[in-house]
């Protein structure tokens, strides 16, 4: 590989990076991840990538980790550790610190193990410290529910701050904001750990919506842990610690403020707030626990204890509470958006938590108890559960009051806060109010921050307090979220979490300033605020977001998420939720990616919620916005009132029944009514929608209503069965129907073709195709005297194809059906138009010698069968036939003779065949001839040869050729004419002898038929047929005749006759020859005729039309010759037992 120049690499990646050197947006994350995956072999590139990642926004970093980045980083770490490259390890560890993590991700690979190992074995101090920190962080994530799920995504952020200068990132990403806030908070709580916590919380807050689920799961875990802890030591120090840690997480800065505020006001309130938060968390946990069953109760109690403990602890870390609140608020926002849980939580924070989810509701009784406990605790600290509920209501009231106050008072944050504060104070205890106020503010800030990650800026920029308040108002909206929760249960959504992140982060930031500013003011309101705060933040969010944009989508999404959270009380749900967070994170990232700045991204989701609010607020915003909004919300009359009412009853009796009733009530309510009527989930979305679509003023009230409704929505019951199921009937559209069995035209055509072909085959095979193998297959024998064939020794395609076949699968077809109709097409080749060399027709050299002109020379005349053979016994001419005659024939003769007629027949011919001359001789033996008969079949003509060249006749057809033939012809003729008669009369033998005389056949023709019978003996039959036609011609020639070709024989006498005779028939005559004669005939023709006699027919067939043989052959044998045809052909199955003769020299 070429050297890597970092600068060049960065330049290449510039497109994908932002100004800070981090990944530009979520869109680039995957590309970058892919690039890193491919091109991170070298140290240089690794370092560059690590730096890029370190300067990447947390959300994007989370995305990156989600898209294989985690594994990749692990690999880097692994490699660097192996290479003992401690500086790189350090860098990577820092990166890991910055990276969002959750339990699932930690489980993906052994990175945690590696890091843990580094704690001990780290190459240098820095590495060890970093590793330890990382381990701590991750441990928290794992051990803490919250940390586990919610924090998972963000955890890295704090470390960044702590380790690296997080400030840089702060502005852009919520995380950064958080960091900023954390940093701010750090002022108060400088410990990095706290930072981490804060971060975690921030993360939680950020992720809230999505995370909430995680939270739950985590919470469950935590609760479990808590329980365990409780069991272990009734006290929940660890848990408390965790919780506290959580709380501190979110609001390190807040803590400071809160602390101050708490100090100022009442730690109890703070505690209450914290408790509430804790309760919420716990409640969620409890819910999960409840779902778990009895443990839940214990847990609740424990949780309450915890909360109390936490609260106690919290006193020290009121900020933590606030943070927890914020987180809870964020969660509530998330959850609220999602479902009633939040509402419940908001209403009766602790109780609400329990009530929020149906399961929670179920457990709500227990939870209620727990909530009550919590409340009691809180109450102990701040006030009774009622007080808590009152606080929630108070928050609402506050809002109203605020609005009113707003109208009266300026829209300053403090004022608002004050206003806000007052309401709670009145409702609750004044003392609480301040504390809560602070808390609320904090919470608001948190919520605000949570909701609008971008908000922080807003908060910072403009009236942070106001915006924050709005956020708090939004918190109220959160309730709406709760309503959404139900829907959330149905759908998992990531987007909300980001908003939360953003919110938290911003909150952290915002709160710091705002909190600092208005801390005092806020203090009063805290207790009730929790709920209100949540609402407020939402409102604020709405305001802020309203400014921003993306209202609808975000809203919808957020609520859904929330819903999921709420509904998922079950452990499995928690698990699912744990998974969901990732998704959420991704979505957030995407959102963030979409938005220019990370803040924006988070804002977006917030905005969604807010949008509706914003619109409403938008109108109001200018001045009294928050308060007014609150008022509006409260004003949103029915909803708010109902909500309040609902809240109260819930608080009073948190029984499910009551909740249900409340739900019903809520359903009955105007806006809420519809939503409630439909479903909790529906309610939620509707509510936000309503505010959105509704006029500015209407909108906000609607939101408020929603919150309260949320409270009532504790009802979290599933919609009625009929609403859950949608039944739709689809009419069958006939036009849609497809006839599967329908065949295409081509298919039909093919079918038709095939069937037709089959029919044709059958008919053909059945009637025409009598073709049968005449021998067995034997190994091939090479032909001698064959010149070598070049065999393409210069072929180059042969090699090409050989190579091709080596790499190409052979096309195998296991059945005829598999054979494609056509071979695969050839690749298209460019076909260039080019000048094709012309091949001239004439010699361009003009060499006249190059032309041999034989045009005047007539073609040589065709020749007939070679006469030569004739002479020889073999009648070679006849070739084989003769041979037969000789050998076999004789033998045949033997028997043949025996058989009177048959023998006879044969003889006659034979003689001829063999030698004319010798006829006489043959005579006796002739019989054999018959055998030939068969032979002739194949070679009909040959036999004739003996006689003359009769062959000619057969072959040439041409009469002329016959030259020699003439005699025969004569014969033929003579006979021919007479033949007829002779035949008839033609007692076989005589004829035979006469041989030639036999020729008589000529007459045969006509006679043919007649003769057959005439012959009396076997003849009758055989002859009859064959002869008929052929008789004439062949007859005479005998030989000729056989030639089937007789036609040719024609020359002989036959000619004339032959013509007609031409074909097989000619032979016919032969047969006529009469039994014996026939033979002759056969002979002649084929000799085969021999068989004639009986077979007469046989002979004929072969010879002439093959009639003889064919037909007769069999018969002939049987009768006449007795030579085994099978044997003659090479093999007789019968072997020695064959009743026919097996001539020894058959093969000749």
């Amino acid at each position, binding site marked *: 590989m070429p050297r890597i120049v970092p600068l060049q690499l960065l330049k290449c990646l510039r497109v994908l990076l932002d100004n800070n050197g981090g990944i530009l947006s979520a869109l680039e994350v995957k590309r970058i991840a892919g690039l890193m995956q491919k091109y991170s072999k070298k140290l240089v590139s690794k370092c560059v990538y690590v730096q890029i990642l370190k300067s990447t926004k947390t959300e994007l970093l989370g995305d990156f980790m989600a898209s294989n980045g985690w594994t990749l980083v692990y690999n880097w770490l692994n490699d660097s550790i192996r290479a003992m490259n401690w500086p790189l390890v350090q860098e990577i560890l820092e990166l890991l610190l910055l990276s969002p993590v959750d339990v699932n991700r930690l489980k993906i690979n052994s990175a945690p193990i590696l890091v843990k190992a580094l704690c001990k074995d780290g190459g240098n101090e820095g590495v060890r410290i970093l590793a330890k920190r990382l381990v701590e962080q991750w441990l928290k994530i794992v051990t803490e529910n919250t940390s586990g799920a919610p924090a998972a995504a963000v955890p890295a952020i704090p470390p960044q701050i702590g380790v690296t200068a997080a400030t840089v990132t702060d502005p852009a990403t919520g995380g950064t904001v958080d960091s900023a806030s954390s940093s701010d908070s750090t002022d108060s709580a400088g410990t990095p750990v706290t930072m981490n916590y804060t971060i975690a919380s921030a993360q939680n807050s950020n992720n809230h919506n999505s995370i909430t689920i995680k939270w739950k799961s985590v919470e469950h875990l935590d609760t479990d842990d808590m329980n365990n802890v409780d069991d272990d030591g009734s006290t929940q120090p660890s848990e408390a610690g965790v919780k506290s840690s959580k709380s501190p997480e979110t609001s390190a800065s807040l803590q400071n403020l809160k602390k101050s505020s708490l100090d100022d006001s009442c730690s109890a309130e703070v505690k209450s707030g914290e408790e509430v938060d804790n309760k919420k968390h716990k409640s969620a946990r409890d819910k999960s626990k409840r779902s778990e069953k009895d443990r839940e109760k214990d847990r609740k109690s424990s949780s309450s204890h915890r909360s109390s403990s936490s609260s106690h602890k919290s006193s020290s870390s009121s900020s933590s509470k606030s943070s927890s609140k914020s987180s809870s608020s964020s969660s509530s926002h998330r959850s609220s958006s999602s479902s009633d849980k939040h509402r419940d939580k908001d209403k009766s924070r602790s109780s609400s938590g329990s009530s929020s989810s149906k399961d929670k509701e179920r457990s709500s009784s227990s939870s209620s108890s727990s909530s009550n406990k919590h409340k009691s605790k809180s109450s102990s600290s701040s006030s009774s559960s009622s007080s808590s509920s009152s606080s929630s209501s108070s928050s609402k009231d506050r809002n109203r009051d605020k609005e009113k106050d707003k109208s009266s008072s300026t829209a300053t944050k403090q004022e608002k806060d004050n206003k806000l504060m007052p309401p709670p104070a009145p409702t609750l205890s004044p003392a609480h109010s301040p504390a809560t106020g602070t808390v609320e503010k904090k919470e608001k800030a948190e919520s605000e921050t949570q909701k609008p990650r971008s908000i922080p800026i807003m908060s910072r920029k403009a009236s942070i307090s106001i915006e924050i308040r709005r956020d708090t108002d939004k918190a109220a909206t959160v309730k709406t979220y709760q309503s959404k929760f139900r829907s959330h249960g149905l759908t998992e959504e990531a987007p909300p979490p980001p908003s939360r992140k953003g919110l938290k982060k911003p909150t952290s930031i915002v709160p710091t300033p705002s909190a600092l500013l208005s801390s005092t003011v806020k203090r009063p309101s805290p207790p009730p605020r929790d709920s209100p705060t949540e609402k407020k933040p939402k409102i604020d969010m709405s305001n802020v977001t309203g400014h921003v944009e993306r209202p609808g989508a975000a809203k919808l999404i957020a609520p859904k998420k929330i819903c999921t959270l709420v509904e998922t009380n079950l452990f499995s749900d928690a698990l699912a939720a744990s998974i969901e967070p990732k998704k959420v994170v991704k979505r957030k990232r995407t959102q963030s990616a979409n938005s220019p700045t990370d803040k924006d991204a988070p804002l977006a989701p917030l905005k969604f919620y807010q949008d509706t609010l914003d619109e409403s607020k938008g109108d109001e915003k200018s001045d009294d916005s928050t308060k007014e909004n609150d008022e509006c919300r409260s004003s949103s009359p029915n909803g708010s009132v109902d909500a309040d009412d609902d809240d109260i009853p819930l608080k009073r009796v948190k029984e499910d029944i009551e909740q249900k009733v409340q739900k019903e009530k809520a359903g009955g309510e105007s806006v809420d009514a519809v939503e409630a009527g439909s479903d909790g989930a529906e309610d939620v979305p509707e509510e936000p929608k309503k505010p959105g679509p509704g006029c500015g003023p209407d909108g906000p009230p609607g939101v408020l209503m929603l919150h309260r409704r949320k409270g009532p929505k504790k009802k979290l019951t599933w919609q009625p069965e009929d609403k859950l199921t949608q039944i739709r009937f689809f009419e069958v559209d006939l036009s849609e129907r497809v006839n599967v069995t329908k065949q295409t035209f081509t298919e039909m055509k093919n079918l038709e073709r095939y069937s037709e072909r089959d029919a044709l*085959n059958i008919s053909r095979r059945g009637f*025409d195709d*009598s*073709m049968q*193998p*005449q021998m*067995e297959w034997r190994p*091939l*024998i*090479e*032909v*001698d005297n*064959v010149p070598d064939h*070049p*065999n*393409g*020794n*210069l*072929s*180059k*395609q*042969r090699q090409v*194809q*050989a190579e*091709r*076949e080596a790499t190409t*699968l*052979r*096309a195998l*077809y296991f059945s005829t059906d598999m054979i*494609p109709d*056509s*071979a695969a097409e*050839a690749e298209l*080749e460019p076909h*260039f138009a080019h000048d*094709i*060399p*012309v*091949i*001239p*027709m*004439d010699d361009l050299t003009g060499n006249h010698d*190059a*032309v041999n*002109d*034989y*045009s005047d020379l*007539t073609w040589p005349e065709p*020749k007939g069968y*070679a006469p030569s053979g004739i002479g020889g016994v073999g009648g*070679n001419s006849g070739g*084989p036939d003769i*041979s037969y005659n000789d050998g076999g024939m004789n033998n045949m003769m033997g028997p043949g003779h025996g058989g009177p007629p048959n023998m006879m027949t044969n003889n006659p011919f034979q003689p001829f065949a063999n030698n004319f001359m010798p006829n006489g001789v043959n005579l006796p033996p002739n019989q054999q001839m018959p055998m030939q008969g068969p032979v002739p079949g*194949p*070679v009909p003509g*040959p036999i004739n040869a003996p006689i003359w060249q009769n062959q000619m006749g057969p*072959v040439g*057809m041409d009469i002329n050729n016959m030259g020699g033939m003439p005699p025969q012809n004569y014969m033929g003729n003579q006979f021919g004419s007479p033949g007829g008669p002779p035949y008839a009369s033609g007692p076989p033998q005589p004829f035979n002898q006469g041989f030639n005389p036999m020729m008589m056949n000529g007459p045969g023709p006509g006679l043919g038929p007649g003769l057959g019978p005439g012959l009396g003996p076997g003849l009758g039959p055989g002859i009859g047929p064959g002869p008929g036609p052929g008789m004439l011609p062949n007859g005479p020639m005998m030989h000729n005749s056989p030639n089937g070709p007789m036609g040719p024989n024609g020359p002989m006498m036959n000619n004339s006759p032959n013509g007609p005779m031409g074909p097989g028939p000619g032979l016919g005559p032969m047969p006529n020859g009469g039994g014996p004669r026939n033979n002759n005939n056969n002979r002649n023709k084929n000799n085969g005729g021999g068989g004639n006699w009986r077979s007469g027919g046989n002979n004929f067939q072969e010879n002439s039309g093959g009639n003889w043989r064919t037909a007769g052959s069999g018969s002939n044998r049987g009768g006449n010759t007795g030579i085994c045809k099978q044997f003659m052909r090479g093999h007789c199955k019968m072997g020695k037992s064959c009743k026919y003769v097996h001539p020894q020299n058959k*093969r000749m």
Partner: protein
Amino acid sequence: MKIKLIDSVVRSFKVAKIFRENTDKINAIDFAPNGEHLISCSEDDQIVIYDCEKGTQSRTVNSKKYGVDLIHFTHANNTAIHSSTKVDDTIRYLSLHDNKYLRYFPGHTKKVISLCISPVEDSFLSGSLDKTLRLWDLRSPNCQGLMHLSGRPIAAYDPEGLIFAAGVNSESIKLYDLRSFDKGPFITFKLNQEKECDWTGLKFSRDGKTILISTNGSVIRLVDAFHGTPLQTFTGYPNNKGLAIEASFSPDSQFIFSGSTDGRVHIWNADTGNKISVLNGDHPGPVQCIQFNPKYMMLASACTNMAFWLPTSEEGP
């Protein structure tokens, strides 16, 4: 063991195998030079390959899209070229191994009636009713040489692959040196024009001494390959349908085989012109294709059925 092909052996040929793979007339057959495989194509668009040593049908592929005629093995294993009977008159180079066309040779505008491949290299000749004769190379779809004639062209390579013969208009044979075909024929044989039929095929004897001219009538001509002297005329077989009945040499150039419309196989002695025998295999239809295995004692004849013939007599008389 090698055996000389003599009359008696020739006469003893009998049908040993019958294949009914096709439902329509087989229109071309070709033995691989090593005599181990036989390829056939038929008017039902099937290409069937036979294993001659085992006497079995070894493979079948279809060419229903383009149809198939005048199929010839090329030198590579499992490849063949054939003319088309459908779509167009392109010549196609087919790999039977994977049943895929390797190349097309477009150019002819009418039915290709003559196709032969060089026994030595990858070039081949095609003659078409468009009155052109084209020289090709398997490696290129482009025509390597083009001859315009006044009539129906037929062509053949000599066994050495150095010369090719073009039969023109049923009256003359022109011999070209493959190395300088652009200079025109180095010799032309003008013959007595066929009156009653057309030349449908040219074949050099394996010894390169004679050229066999088959027709669509009932006559077969034999001329001296060096001087063009008319040597023999073979008749005596019926061809009453005007079919282009194939005539073939035996590998030792001694015998000439021809099919006929009566379903029988007619055999002549190439030297004497005498008819040796007529073999009856009971072919139900006209025997239009007949070839002797270039290496073994085996004869293949085809109507719709494919028949393998073996000698029953391996010894001389």
